[in-house]
């Protein structure tokens, strides 16, 4: 008996549409505005959500299948890494500073955007866009948690990993990525999408994620690099979401173009400032270097980004306002930030050191126009002082930019000898900035940025001590009290690499592993 009915075969696109946009409906028992209260106030106009192009047609059954396979493999490596003391295979204990920076300053952002994408995944009116955002939300949870499980083993043996949440909430340099993430999360859902999916995932991810993961690959960090490979296909999906999102917004209404342009200007600049930390990592923290920050910037920002903005020109989008200044800074920022952290090394929860002669030569070769002229002499001066037993540590507190929250350490465009400094008076209060662009971001949203929790200002106001501390006690040491508020193990988490516990333990344990 032939019972096969002749049923219509659905194409992948139609089938996927039934699996996603077919599920939603227009509410009638509650006003639509009450069910979706957040997708109008930013001024973005969407006329037809059905024009959203599904960036990847993934249903949950397939999602579970792929992700389950990936996670089985990944966790097998994480386990093997822990069981076999994989941490002893890294090139050099200095490499640990790179993963400390990633763990302290990048992983929490992965966790942050889970909620941001869940909000977008709930509050956009178009079902297809919501499903794409939800998939990214749960992917980001994956990234945060797999990073946690990879780093867990490092935390058992090395310093600086132990108090991620405490430090994120308190430490001066971590307020740079924290304020970046909170700026995105407190924005409306469309700005969030442009900030994270487009500006960050699409334009800048090759300058953040890829350098850290490549650094791991080059430096024998099996655990982190396996995570990186495993996350690659997720990241590709996230990048696709970013490009589809921006095209969709730009095609929906010409009035969206200036709003989106403003967000691109803002988030490109904010992102480029966060990336200064990555630049320092690439040029200084990797014992075996992948490429220079300048080279990475030229490939991923100038070439790829340039092509992208040529492509977006037909929508009326121009390159971000800070483009030229950011490109000029490629010659400087990694050195300026490393010098900053070297001098404030007593207050950072990772180690800093003087580069070897070979490393200085590498930097000279990679930065022929600037390194020997502006930075090598300073690094050599600091190294010589250290050799004389006078390791330089700044004891004073720096001035922070109100927007990006990085201490004023960047130089004027066109003049690498002069620190860039701007001021705005808003309602009788003075606000300080590192650049024209950070000043302009403040000027566009002063009510938001007057709220910036600036660690240095908070320290001066006495808000950065543990509750049981008595600042009037005769033996009160304010710097020590602040570092305790950060949850630092003083002398173990911070300061010079040479002579540090991490350096000594790594040498001792590696000796045990390779010698009798």
């Amino acid at each position, binding site marked *: 008996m032939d019972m096969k009915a002749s049923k219509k075969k659905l194409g992948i696109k139609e089938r996927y549409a039934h699996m996603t946009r077919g599920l*939603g409906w227009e509410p009638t028992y509650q006003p639509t505005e009450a069910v979706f209260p957040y997708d109008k106030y930013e001024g973005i106009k969407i006329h037809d959500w059905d024009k959203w192009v599904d960036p990847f047609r993934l249903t949950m*059954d397939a999602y579970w299948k792929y992700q389950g396979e990936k996670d089985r493999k990944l966790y097998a490596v994480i386990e093997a890494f822990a069981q076999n003391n994989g941490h002893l295979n890294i090139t050099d204990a200095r490499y640990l500073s790179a993963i400390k920076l990633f763990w302290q300053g990048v992983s929490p952002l992965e966790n942050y955007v889970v909620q941001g994408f869940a909000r977008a995944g709930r509050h956009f009116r178009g079902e297809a866009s919501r499903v794409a955002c*939800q998939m990214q939300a*749960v992917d980001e949870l994956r990234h945060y*948690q797999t990073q946690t499980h990879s780093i867990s083993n490092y935390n058992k043996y090395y310093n600086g990993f132990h108090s991620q949440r405490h430090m994120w909430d308190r430490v001066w340099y971590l307020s740079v990525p924290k304020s970046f993430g*909170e700026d995105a999360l407190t924005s409306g859902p469309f700005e969030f999408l442009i900030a994270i999916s487009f500006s960050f995932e699409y334009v800048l991810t090759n300058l953040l994620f890829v350098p850290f993961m490549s650094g791991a690959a080059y430096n024998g960090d099996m655990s982190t690099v396996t995570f990186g490979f495993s996350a690659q296909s997720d990241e590709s999906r996230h990048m696709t979401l970013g490009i589809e999102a921006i095209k969709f917004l730009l095609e929906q209404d010409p009035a969206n173009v200036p709003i989106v342009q403003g967000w691109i200007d803002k988030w490109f600049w904010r992102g480029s400032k966060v990336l200064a930390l990555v630049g320092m990592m690439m040029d200084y923290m990797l014992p075996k270097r992948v490429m220079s920050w300048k080279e990475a910037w030229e490939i991923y920002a100038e070439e790829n980004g340039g092509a992208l903005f040529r492509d977006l020109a037909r929508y009326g989008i121009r390159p971000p306002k800070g483009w030229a200044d950011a490109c000029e800074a490629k010659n400087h920022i990694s050195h300026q930030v490393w010098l900053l952290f070297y001098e404030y090394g007593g207050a950072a929860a990772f180690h800093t050191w003087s580069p070897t002669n070979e490393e200085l030569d590498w930097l000279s070769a990679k930065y022929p126009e600037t390194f020997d002229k502006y930075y090598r002499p300073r690094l050599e001066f600091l190294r010589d002082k250290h050799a004389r037993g006078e390791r330089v540590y700044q004891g004073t507190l720096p001035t922070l930019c109100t927007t990006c929250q990085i201490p004023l350490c960047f130089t004027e465009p066109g003049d690498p000898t002069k620190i860039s400094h701007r001021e705005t008076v808003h309602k009788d209060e003075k606000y300080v900035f590192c650049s024209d662009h950070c000043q302009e971001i403040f000027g566009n949203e002063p009510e938001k940025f007057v709220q910036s929790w600036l660690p240095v200002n908070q320290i001066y106001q006495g808000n950065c001590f543990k509750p049981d501390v008595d600042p009037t006690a005769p033996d009160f040491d304010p710097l020590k009290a602040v570092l305790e508020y950060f949850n630092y193990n003083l002398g173990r988490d911070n300061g010079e690499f040479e002579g540090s516990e991490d350096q000594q333990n790594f040498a001792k344990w590696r000796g045990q592993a390779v010698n009798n």
Partner: protein
Amino acid sequence: MSVEIKAVEIKPLRNTFTNVAELIGGDKPASRYQEATLGTQAQTNMHYRPTWEPGFELFDPRRSAIQMREWYDLRDPRQLYYSSWTIQRAKEQETQEANFDFVESRCLHLSLSPEVKKLAIDVLLPLRHAAWGANMNNNELCSRAYSEVLISPAIMQAMDNLGIAQYLTRLGLMLEEPEILDTAKAQWMNGAAWQPLRHLTEDSFVIRDFMEIFLVQNFVVDGLLYPLIYDRFVDDSLTSRGGSAVAMLTSFMPLWFTQSSKWVDGVLKVAAAESDENKALLSQWTSHWRDRTITALTPIATMAFGDQQEIMLNEVIEQFNARARKLGIDV
């Protein structure tokens, strides 16, 4: 006999992260669930108020009237983290996929009697929209909840809800032409039997208290709907009438409900035991939304069970009330 491989042993400096140690009674070896979840959400020194909700901090327990001295007490007894979740779902998906293949290869879906097939379609297909509603509520929960112990299981639950909506869609596409999905949606939008449930679902979309959203969707609505539909209607009623193919195509749902109930019960039990105020509020919410859900499910139960409707519904209500009481909720 045991074999012992010698490996170089290094004594660790510490066992786990500070934020975890603080919540498990000191620096002890911690599980993957604990390290992924405990104490990980930012807690203080937030920079900007949300533009979408300026009355609250970005992360703010005041988004619920429920109060906890320690929100991280609301742990998930399943101890799910992303990896264990996705690997478990991948296994369950494999079974569900095999069921789809089995039914299709043996044409079991074509051997359903016209009455059983129609009944299955009438009762189950509009529920894909209810599952989508659950997905919306769990996304809302994820985005607004305080503490990672609620945030992470909420997004996993939301994705489960989406998976269920998609399994129901596949069931529709297997049993009928694709237009059947439009017919079912028309029922959801305008069919008299479905209006109370759609009304309830839309009302749940405007709840702002995240613990209330959690309770309404995952405890009350699911807690009455899943036993009624998947245990009594699909597994008992349809199966006894030759509709076991439908039970195969929905085998994931009752299994999932049993698992997710462990999470829901774990959270509510601890929240209710925290204070009399919590207990009173949870009890008030439960009674209110239970009665509305019963009203909403009654016409669907009539469709599903005919004159057995009252018996079936009462069984489910009694089961639900007993569950609530065990959690310390007065109903």
